[in-house]
C-alpha cells in the first residue's frame, strides 16, 4: 500500500463536545467513539465507501466524565472504556439493545448559536439511536484513568492513572496481577509484545516549582523496577504518546503539551534514539498506531493532521488532513485502524469522527 490515494470518506457529526477516543470493533465496520462528557456513540459504516455519512446507531451510557481510551478485543465482542470518572467499563458489543432514545447530533452548534443575539437560528439535527445495555465496571481507581491498553495476547488489561498507579489486570477475571506506583501522574505507557517490559512517562505539570515532574523510564514489569531512566535524553519534556512496535524492536515517543510535537524512534533493546522524524506535529503529538502491514506507523497531533511514516527509516509517507483553526489548531485526540489497515478513524476535537480510506 502506497497510501497515495488515501482520502477522507466521512465526517461522522457528533458535536455534544470534543470527541476524545475512537475504536473499531474487531474486523467489523462498527466504530465507537467517546467524548469529553463521558458519552459514547456507535456507528455502522456502510460497505460502500460513498454517500452521506451514516447516523449513529447506538448510544453507550454509563461514564460520567471524559473518555480517555477505548480498546476492543480482536474478536470485536468486548469493548473497554477508560475515563476521568476513575472507572474502566466493559461492554458486551453483541448485546441486544435496551430500547431507544432521541438525541440532537448538533447540540453544540445549537448552544453556541444561542449565545449570540443575532444571526440565523441553527436547527437541531435529531436522530433516534438504540441504547446499549448497561456496562460492567471492570476497574475502579482513585484518579483519572489516562492510559489503557491490552497486552499483545489480550490476556491483560493495563491501566495508568493520575494517582501514579500502574495496574495489570487479568482480563478474564479482573484480578490484579501486578501493580506499582510512580511518583508522578502516569502520562503514557507502552508495553513490549511479550509483556515483560514497559515504557512509561510521568508528569506533574507545575510551573516554576521543584515538584514539577517530567520523567521517562523503562521498566521491568515482573520486578516492577526501573531498568533505564531516559529522562535526561528527553529533558524537560512531557511525553503523552508512546507505542511499542509489534515486532518488539521499536518504541515510538511523542512529545506533547503545546511543545514542538517531535517524534523519536527508540531502539527498544537499548533505549537509544534511533531516529527523529520530520516534520513535527505543531503543538504536540497525541496518539500513535502501527499499521498492520508492519512497515508503517501513523501519528496524530494537536495540529489536525495525521501522518503516515515508514517504520524502518522514519520517512514521511503521507499526510492526511490540513492544519485547521486559528493561531492554535484543533486536535486529533486519537486514531484507530481496522485490522486490514484500510479504514482509519480519527477522534476530532471539533465534534466528529473522521473516517479515512487508506489506499
Amino acid at each position: 500500500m502506497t497510501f497515495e490515494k488515501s482520502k477522507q470518506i466521512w465526517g461522522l457529526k457528533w458535536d455534544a463536545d470534543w470527541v476524545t477516543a475512537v475504536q473499531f470493533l474487531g474486523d467489523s465496520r462498527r466504530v465507537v467513539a467517546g467524548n469529553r462528557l463521558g458519552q459514547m456513540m456507535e456507528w455502522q459504516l456502510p460497505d460502500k465507501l460513498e454517500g452521506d455519512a451514516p447516523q449513529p446507531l447506538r448510544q453507550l451510557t454509563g461514564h460520567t466524565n471524559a473518555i480517555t481510551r477505548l480498546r476492543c478485543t480482536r474478536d470485536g465482542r468486548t469493548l473497554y472504556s477508560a475515563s476521568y470518572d476513575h472507572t474502566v467499563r466493559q461492554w458486551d458489543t453483541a448485546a441486544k439493545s435496551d430500547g431507544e432514545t432521541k438525541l440532537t447530533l448538533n447540540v453544540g452548534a445549537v448552544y453556541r448559536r444561542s449565545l449570540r443575539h443575532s444571526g440565523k437560528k441553527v436547527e437541531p439535527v435529531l436522530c433516534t439511536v438504540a441504547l446499549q445495555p448497561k456496562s460492567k465496571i471492570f476497574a475502579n481507581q482513585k484518579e483519572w484513568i489516562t492510559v489503557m491498553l491490552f497486552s499483545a495476547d489480550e490476556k491483560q488489561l493495563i491501566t495508568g492513572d493520575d494517582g501514579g498507579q500502574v495496574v495489570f489486570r487479568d482480563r478474564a477475571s479482573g484480578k490484579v496481577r501486578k501493580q506499582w506506583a510512580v511518583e508522578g501522574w502516569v502520562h503514557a505507557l507502552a508495553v513490549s509484545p511479550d509483556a515483560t517490559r514497559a515504557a512509561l512517562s510521568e508528569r506533574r505539570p507545575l510551573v516554576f516549582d521543584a515538584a514539577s515532574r517530567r520523567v521517562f523510564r523503562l521498566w521491568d514489569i515482573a520486578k516492577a523496577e526501573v531498568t533505564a531512566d531516559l529522562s535526561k535524553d528527553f529533558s524537560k519534556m512531557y511525553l503523552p504518546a508512546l507505542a511499542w512496535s509489534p515486532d518488539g524492536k521499536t518504541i515510538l515517543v511523542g512529545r506533547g503539551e503545546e511543545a514542538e510535537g517531535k517524534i523519536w524512534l527508540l531502539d527498544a533493546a537499548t533505549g537509544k534514539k534511533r531516529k527523529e522524524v520530520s516534520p513535527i506535529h505543531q503543538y504536540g503529538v497525541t496518539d500513535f498506531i502501527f499499521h498492520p502491514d508492519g512497515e508503517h506507523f501513523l501519528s496524530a497531533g494537536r495540529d489536525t493532521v495525521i501522518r503516515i511514516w515508514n517504520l524502518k527509516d522514519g520517512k514521511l509517507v503521507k499526510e492526511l488532513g490540513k492544519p485547521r483553526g486559528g493561531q492554535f489548531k484543533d486536535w486529533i485526540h486519537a486514531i484507530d485502524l481496522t485490522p486490514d489497515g484500510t479504514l482509519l478513524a480519527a477522534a476530532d476535537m471539533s465534534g466528529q469522527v473522521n473516517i479515512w480510506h487508506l489506499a
Partner: protein
Amino acid sequence: MKPLCKPHEHFNRRAFLKGSLLTGAGVSVANFGSLFHAQAAVNEAQKKGKRCILLWMNGGASQLDTFDMKPGRPTAGPFRPIGTNVNGLQICEYLPKMAKVADKLAVIRSMRTGSPDHPDGIYHMHTGFKQSERTPHAEIGAVIAKYCGNLDADLPSFVRMGPTGNAGPGYLGPNFAPFSLQRDGRMPTFSTSNLKPEVRERRAELFRFLETEFARQHQAEPFESHRLAKERAWRLLRAREAFDVSEEWPAHKDRYGDSNFGRGCFTALKLIERGVPFVEIGHDNYDSHANNFVCHKANLQQLDPAWSTLLLDLEDRGLLEDTLVVWMGEVGRTPNINNRAGRDHYIRAWSIVLSGSGIKGGQVYGASDEDGRDVAENPVNEGDLFATIYTALGINPRKKHFWGKRPVWLTPEEAKPIAPFLS
C-alpha cells in the same frame, strides 16, 4: 474648653517642605504618605492588632474549577463539585481539605473587575486602582504595613514571597516597601553574610560613626533615609532566624504539603506569630491558556493542604480572629474552554475568598449566571473588595493621603464594603 491640638494635627516644617517640594521642571515630588502625620490613624489601627495573609494565585485561578462550579453546563470542566461543611456550598473535588473548613470561608462569586491582563490586573488587584492612573498607588501590603505595622520592629512589616504584587509602596514611600523572600520563604541568598557576627557589628559601628560625622556637615533627608535603611537592614539581620523554619518544617510538611507554597504558608504563620502584619505568598502558575485542567489539578493539590492547614493553625493559636486570609489572583478564567484545553482571562464574573479577622464565614456573596458568563447578582469591584479588606482590618478605607499636593484615598469614593461579611 477646646482640647489642645495634638502634634499630628499640625504641619511640621519637615513635612511641609517634603510635601511642597518641587522639582526644577515643576513636577511635584512625593511626600511619601501625608502632609498630615497620620500617627493617630496608625495608632488606632495598631491597637486592633490586625494582620493579613494574602494567598496570591498568580496568573488567575479558574473560578469555574474551584469555587463557582457549573456542573452539567457546557462551561463545566472535568472537575466535580463536592459538598462542604456548609450546607449548600459546593467546591471543587480537588479542594477536599478546604471543604472541611468552608465554615471559615466567605466566598465572593460576583467579582467584576476592570483590568483583564496580567501587569494591569496584578496592579489593580493589589492597589484597588487602575495602573494607568498617574498616581503611584500603594500596594495592600504597604497600606497594612503602615497602619498595622511598627516601623521600629526588627522584622519588616510587609513580607512577600514568590510571584506577587508589582506596585510596591507607591505614595507611602520606601519605609513600607516589601521585603521579598524566596519562593519557599527562605531569606534571599544575598542576605547570608560571610562575616562573623562580631566582625559585622564592628563594621556597623564604623559605618555609624562615619554616617554621623557626615550628617553633621550634610543635613538632608536622603542621607537620613539611607542611614535608617541601613539600621533597619542590620536589625533585620539580627532577627533573620524568624525566617528560618528549617528545624520545624519536617514536622509540619505533611500537613502543609511538601511544596514551596506549603512551606511559604508555614513561614507566613511563623511571621504572623512574630508580629509581622502582612505576608503575601504567591502560587505559580494559574495562567492556563492551555491545559487548564491538569494545570489546575496540580496546583490545587498543593493549595488545598497548605491553605486549609494555615487556617487551622491560625485558629489553634487564636490568631485567626485577627488575621485576614485573602485568596485571589489578578483575573478569573473564561467560561469557554478553548481549543488548547485552556481557559483565557476573564473579568466579568469570577471569585475571591476571604476568611478570618472577623469576616463571617460559611457564606457566599453574589452569584454568577448559570454558565458563569456574567454576574447575576451583587457585583463586586476592586474598590468594594479593598473597602471590605481594609474595614475588616480596622483601617478606614477612605483614609486620605497625598501624592505631592494631590489627595489620594485608600479606595475610590464609591467603594462599599460587603456588609454581610462584616456583620
